[in-house]
């Protein structure tokens, strides 16, 4: 089943075509990777899907329903959550509160707050931050802030999770841990759509990879196919 | 901890103290020591009430029969920051907490309007100084404690101006007025009075407070060829109007600005260009011997540039009147003093002085028309001459006014 699909999605910033006419889809239960050189339009695509940006060209559907034109909070409540490339946390609030807000607002109204609080603690543990519950989020390292974002996104009980460069700045061992985290998220029944530059991770966890270049889709396929695609090697992988 | 915060002001609610033997008479006032109206304190009523208090005290104070002795005056001045909320509170503080014996007025027409009902409610006499206006007239019957001294638009200024203009054969006038009670009233009354006198009002333009350019108005008046240009604004705008008229070479036969032209420093700023400009008032040292004395006393104390040729003698006379009424009453009871003020005539620097009371003597009053030394003034050879027709005149009006001097 296609949980997310986009047709002819385009976005212009002034004269710059950040995305032009991109078709893409994500199936339920998949882990899909989105790669491409810096400035290819990956984050822009995520922004459009989550309604951080709006566009008039193209249609994006989530669970079969058209979501273009909706507001971010509506999309979140439909079951689509995201993290940000440049972290956007509630810096002065404790890590736990960050997650708690996710569970309090992302889920249908009327859920008892005690339930939400419990869920938040559990998720913080899930991303390995139970030790930093009370630390103000701004005092965490960047990597841990990103983990808070993941927990916060999960707290909204999404069906689809968008992860934007979760693994930047991690050493290989940490990358391995993060890969495990992504797999575990999928195992909870959540579809994952990731942007990464760390090839090892992308190749390791993804079922399918989409490649963008200059706002256009230049390739799509299994990790194997992508690694051997000449255009991708030339513009992205190098050598 | 919330609790403590709320409790604090309660402690402030003090208890009454036993009244000591009367040693001084306290006059209190909320005055604009800061903020946009602070200029009144320095140039209008401020110097006068200070001067008056010093004089009275130099005599040993006011003789109050009730106490059988002279009691010196003490001033209690609070700053209202030119804010209405602060002024009304300060006034009530003076009355209720400090229990001052008398109050002096706040500055500006609007503030007088607000102060009058408060003073009346507490039965305090309020002599009006800077301000007053036609809007207040219908309320006067319900404000028995109010005594206004300043002349204003229909309180004889505009009718007199209309006479002067029609005598001089002026046929057209242009009006610029400020969006303020003062401006609205004056332009309204001028419209009526001048039209009655057969003068055609060819332009009426209002400007907002803080306007930074009036050249379009001056240009228009010039194009329309208005023989008289009347600016019913405050000094800021009036200065701008004159400066612009000079630069744009618009020299009407009559150029009247008020308030502004009535201040002594006005002539200092514009030098020879002030010649022939008209304003309200008016009095000068030629008005009477008493005026001359008053002038001498003033410049002995203050910079002559602070003189106001419109209101100063009126404020001073008002205080003289107030003072005599208190001594005559022989008590500090306001109701008694009020009766004395409403029914008596006292000698002041204006000569015999009395108030025209409303509501058969039961309402508030305004200084009688006969008491004024003049309604319209004009700068002639460095003197602000009274040019009203009749006995008050100190010099005939010069119409058309001389040309603007060439800049040297």
């Amino acid at each position, binding site marked *: 089943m296609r949980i997310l699909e986009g047709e002819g999605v385009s976005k212009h910033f002034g004269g710059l075509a950040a995305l032009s006419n991109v078709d893409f889809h994500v199936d339920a239960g998949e882990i899909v990777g989105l790669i491409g*050189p810096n400035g290819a339009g990956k984050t822009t695509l995520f922004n459009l899907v989550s309604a951080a940006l709006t566009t008039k060209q193209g249609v994006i559907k989530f669970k079969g329903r058209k979501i273009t034109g909706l507001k971010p909070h509506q999309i979140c409540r439909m079951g689509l959550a995201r993290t940000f490339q440049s972290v956007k946390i509630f810096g002065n609030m404790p890590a736990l509160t960050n997650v708690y807000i996710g569970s309090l607002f992302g889920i249908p109204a009327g859920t008892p707050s005690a339930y939400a609080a419990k869920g938040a603690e559990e998720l913080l543990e899930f991303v390995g931050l139970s030790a930093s519950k009370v630390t103000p989020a701004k005092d965490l390292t960047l990597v841990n802030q990103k983990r808070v974002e993941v927990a916060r996104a999960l707290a909204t009980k999404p069906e689809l999770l968008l992860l934007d460069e979760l693994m930047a700045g991690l050493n290989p061992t940490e990358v391995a841990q993060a890969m495990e985290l992504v797999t575990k998220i999928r195992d909870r029944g959540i579809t994952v759509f990731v942007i990464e*530059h760390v090839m090892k991770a992308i190749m390791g966890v993804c079922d399918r990879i989409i490649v963008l270049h200059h706002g256009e889709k230049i390739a799509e396929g299994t990790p194997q196919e992508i690694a051997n695609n000449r255009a991708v090697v030339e513009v992205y*992988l190098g050598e | 901890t919330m609790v403590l915060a709320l409790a604090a002001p309660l402690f402030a609610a003090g208890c009454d103290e036993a009244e000591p033997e009367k040693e001084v008479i306290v006059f209190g006032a909320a005055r604009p020591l800061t903020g946009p109206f602070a200029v009144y304190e320095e140039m209008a009523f401020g110097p006068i009430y200070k001067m008056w208090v010093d004089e009275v005290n130099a005599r040993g104070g006011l003789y109050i029969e009730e106490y059988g002795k002279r009691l010196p005056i003490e001033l209690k001045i609070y700053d209202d920051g030119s804010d209405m909320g602060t002024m009304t509170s300060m006034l009530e503080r003076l009355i209720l907490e400090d229990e001052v014996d008398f109050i002096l007025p706040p500055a500006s027409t609007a503030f007088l309007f607000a102060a009058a009902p408060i003073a009346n409610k507490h039965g305090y006499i309020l002599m009006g100084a800077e301000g007053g206006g036609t809007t207040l007239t219908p309320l006067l019957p319900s404000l028995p404690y109010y005594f206004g001294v300043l002349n204003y638009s229909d309180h004889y200024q505009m009718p007199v101006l209309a006479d002067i203009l029609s005598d001089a054969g002026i046929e057209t006038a242009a009006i610029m007025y400020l969006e303020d009670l003062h401006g609205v009233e004056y332009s309204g009354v001028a419209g009526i009075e001048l039209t009655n006198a057969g003068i055609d009002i060819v332009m009426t333009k209002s400007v907002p407070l803080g306007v930074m350019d009036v050249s379009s108005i001056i240009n228009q008046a010039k194009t329309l060829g208005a023989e008289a240009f009347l600016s019913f604004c405050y000094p800021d705008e009036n200065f701008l109007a004159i400066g612009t008229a000079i630069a744009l070479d618009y020299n009407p036969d009559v150029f009247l600005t008020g308030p502004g032209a009535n201040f002594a420093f006005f002539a200092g700023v514009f030098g020879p260009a002030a010649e022939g400009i008209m304003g309200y008032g008016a009095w000068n040292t030629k008005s009477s011997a008493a005026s001359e004395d008053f002038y001498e006393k003033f410049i002995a104390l203050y910079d002559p540039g602070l003189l106001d040729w419109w209101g100063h003698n009126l404020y001073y006379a008002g205080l003289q009147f107030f003072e005599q009424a208190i001594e005559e009453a022989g008590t500090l009871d306001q109701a008694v003093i009020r009766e004395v003020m409403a029914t008596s005539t006292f000698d002041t620097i204006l000569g015999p002085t009395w108030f025209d009371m409303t509501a058969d003597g039961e309402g508030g009053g305004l200084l009688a028309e006969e008491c004024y030394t003049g309604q319209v003034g004009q700068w002639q050879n460095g003197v602000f001459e009274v040019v009203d027709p009749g006995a008050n005149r100190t010099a005939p009006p010069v119409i058309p006014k001389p040309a603007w001097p060439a800049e040297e």
Partner: protein
Amino acid sequence: MLEVNNINTFYGKAQALFDLSLRVEESEIFALIGSNGAGKTTLLNTISGLVTPASGNIEFLGKRINGLAPHIIVEMGISHVPEGGRIFNEMTVRENLEMGAYSSHAWKIRWGTLQQVYEIFPVLKEREKQLARTLSGGEHQMLAMGRGLMSRPKLCILDEPSYGLAPKYVEEVFRIINSLREQGITILLIEQNVRHTLETADRACVLENGHIVLDDICDNLLQSDHVRKAYLGL
């Protein structure tokens, strides 16, 4: 060339660096390895004067530099390319580079230096007049490094220069680091790309929780069990 002796650095009450010491020799590439939050950035910031150590001593070319303001440390020949590059987005590429040469000795010879930087990064010359915020990720990082070079540093501190870069640019970054060394510039480098780093650098130390746990030449570190397990994911 650079000697760090027993420094302790705090953020408020939390201690980030504990009794930390290290030496960087002239003309070498010295790498810092450590998991996230280990204190690598803190160490670099302490060296370049952005953070003041509570105790300890830092010497550069024999002169004590801890406690000096950052702008004085730059004058002495240390250039710091911060995490994420932090270029001036609203200035042109050229102006960014000129800012790099702000310190007084570098300013006089900035035109010469500029030509050299353009030789190393020809793309920057092409983009000279463009506003920095319109650069791509790779160009952005090149500009940050180029700006670092403009001050004619003796020691260049690079904090994760390949952060968030596409694989192709990561290669580019290491190529540049090598060419800097060839020009005789000493380099202090943080990189998460541990294998690549250890293959490029001469010596490295491993930082964990604000302590140095290993300090050796890179060939040895590559063989170390601890490094292989904790940092190479083997």
